[in-house]
């Protein structure tokens, strides 16, 4: 029997539905698709050889390596912190819980430039513990450690924010069941908690990673813009742009855009493949 298309009496009329769909499509086209297309067309405007040169010259290579390094430190750090914090918040009651939630949101509400400035004020030459660091020959600001710190700070809500509502909704019953069956805390975490949150965690990691690689403001303040040493990809793009080297700027930018597209596609594929495990249990 062919399914008959019917509209529920409370639904909007077809005109309004089509209108709403069109509106969102046009909006997405203008503000999302078009800029991405422009990035890639501009990047290849002088041919592939130019593109290759722009992304393989030593400064660009250094920027790419630094960006990957920063992400490779910041993302795992925030995964550990995010899972720990959301587990604590979702599964236990303790004094200062709402304060912790507020603190996690702090990087969202503070301008990234100010986040960077905080590190300069703390670790810089005139800063709070700057002189002590100088004495011990430890360089944080205008060096890789500062960039990593600033990136960790700016990206730390992503994983936790993704997991807290998910874990709160799931409650602690499955964990209690695991414990009553004799599982240790670790076993409960690896066998029950982690599998239940893996999709949210993956999504949080993707968002965290995208931001870690793309962060500009905070990193710009602490980096000092030393070419080949403390320039991440976004900073390198800015420098090229300021030098009116537009094709090269867009070439490096296209790498960032490409990374974003790859992560989105990867997420889509994983969801298609393991989607059945996402089916919620209805009580």
């Amino acid at each position, binding site marked *: 029997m062919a399914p008959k298309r019917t509209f529920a009496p409370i639904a909007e009329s077809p005109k309004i539905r089509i209108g709403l769909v069109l509106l969102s499509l046009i909006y997405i086209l203008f503000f999302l698709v078009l800029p991405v297309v422009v990035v890639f067309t501009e990047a290849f405007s002088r041919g592939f050889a130019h593109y290759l040169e722009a992304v393989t010259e030593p400064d660009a290579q250094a920027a790419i390596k630094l960006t990957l390094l920063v992400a490779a430190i910041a993302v795992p750090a925030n995964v550990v912190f995010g899972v720990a914090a959301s587990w604590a918040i979702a599964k236990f009651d303790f004094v200062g819980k709402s304060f912790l939630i507020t603190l996690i949101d702090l990087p969202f509400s503070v301008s990234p430039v100010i986040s960077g400035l905080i590190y300069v004020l703390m670790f810089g030459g005139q800063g709070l513990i700057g002189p002590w660091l100088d004495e011990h020959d430890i360089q944080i600001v205008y060096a890789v450690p500062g960039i990593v710190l600033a990136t960790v700070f700016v990206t730390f809500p992503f994983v936790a924010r993704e997991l807290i509502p998910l874990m709160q909704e799931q409650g602690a*019953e499955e964990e*209690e069941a695991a414990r009553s*069956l004799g599982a240790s805390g670790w076993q409960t975490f690896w066998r029950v908690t982690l599998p*239940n949150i893996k999709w949210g965690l993956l999504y949080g990691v993707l968002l965290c990673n995208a931001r870690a690689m793309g962060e500009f403001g905070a990193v710009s303040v602490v980096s000092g813009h030393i070419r080949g040493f403390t320039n991440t990809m976004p900073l390198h793009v800015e420098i090229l742009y300021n030098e009116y080297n537009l094709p090269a700027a867009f070439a490096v930018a296209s790498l960032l855009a490409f990374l974003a597209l790859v992560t989105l596609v990867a997420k889509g594929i994983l969801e298609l493949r393991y989607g059945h495990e996402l089916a919620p249990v209805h009580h």
Partner: protein
Amino acid sequence: MHIDVRNVTKRFDSFTAVRNLTLDVRQGELVALLGPSGSGKTTLLRIIAGLEHANEGQILFDGDDAVARHVGERRVGFVFQHYALFRHMTVFENVAFGLRVAPAERRMSNTDIKNRVMSLLSLVQLDRLAARYPSQLSGGQRQRVALARALAIAPLVLLLDEPFGALDAKVRKELRRWLRRLHDDMGLTSIFVTHDQEEALELADRVVVMNQGAIEQIGTPDEVYNTPATPFVYEFLGNVNKIPCTIANGAVNLWGLAVTAETVDGAPVPAGSAAGFAYVRPHDIEIVAEGTQRAIVRHVGAAGPTARLELEVAGVHAPVEVQLIRQAFLDLGLKVGQTVAITARAARVFPARS
């Protein structure tokens, strides 16, 4: 296993969920914790399971302090109200969980685990669904998976939190019988929580009636139903008419029946004249040809093996409910609006709380 709950108190912030409660469950017993929501029955069950710590008091398993034992070492199978099945695992893996997480020196081989899980699944008649996920099962099937999972660790005690609450009436009745058989066959000691009096009375060896964190009465289903210890038990278990009356010198004449007033805690009944309530079951009211108390028939419900009448009695605000066996009802030929005489066969009187 013999379970001994001694003077247990549990507080959540300012709320006391269980207050100074003592309870003894003998080996092989099936006990129901019955009470309204908020009476502390689930909290008590969770304390026995070790999922919650008591603020005061002791839980003894066969005479040993269970508080020192970790929840995983108590050999307690716990069935959660909403089953709490692991949603990302198949039915098979759900049941196998308790066996797989056992410490290495006690862990079974994979073949043994497989055999044990499959035999448990055939016990709960779900062996064909071993590869399904919980989201693909009906409520009754999930309930049975939860039971099989709890039984996998060979528990000595089975604790069930509202085990049949989320199921429809027919499945509930089937599972109830099945659980009773399982309990007897496996020689378990079981405690289940319910707010459904019918379930408690039908299934349990003993019923513990709870109210506001304390025990109102412990007894066999027959005892708690037929000789309720307190007005609360009267009102909570079965239908009852609560008739306001005046106690004169410790006694009341209720519609021609002399009843001696009693108190819950055995304190003396106030001398002289005092307000009280008489509790009369609907089937303990008789319609007679001659009597001191008159009543008007206001409603007749004749469907089923017994007929239900609602009578209007002067001085009683709520309608008085009467239950008659069908033949007696037909013999009397009662009609709505008719005036009849009533008397009580049995009743109990408690002074009103001051």
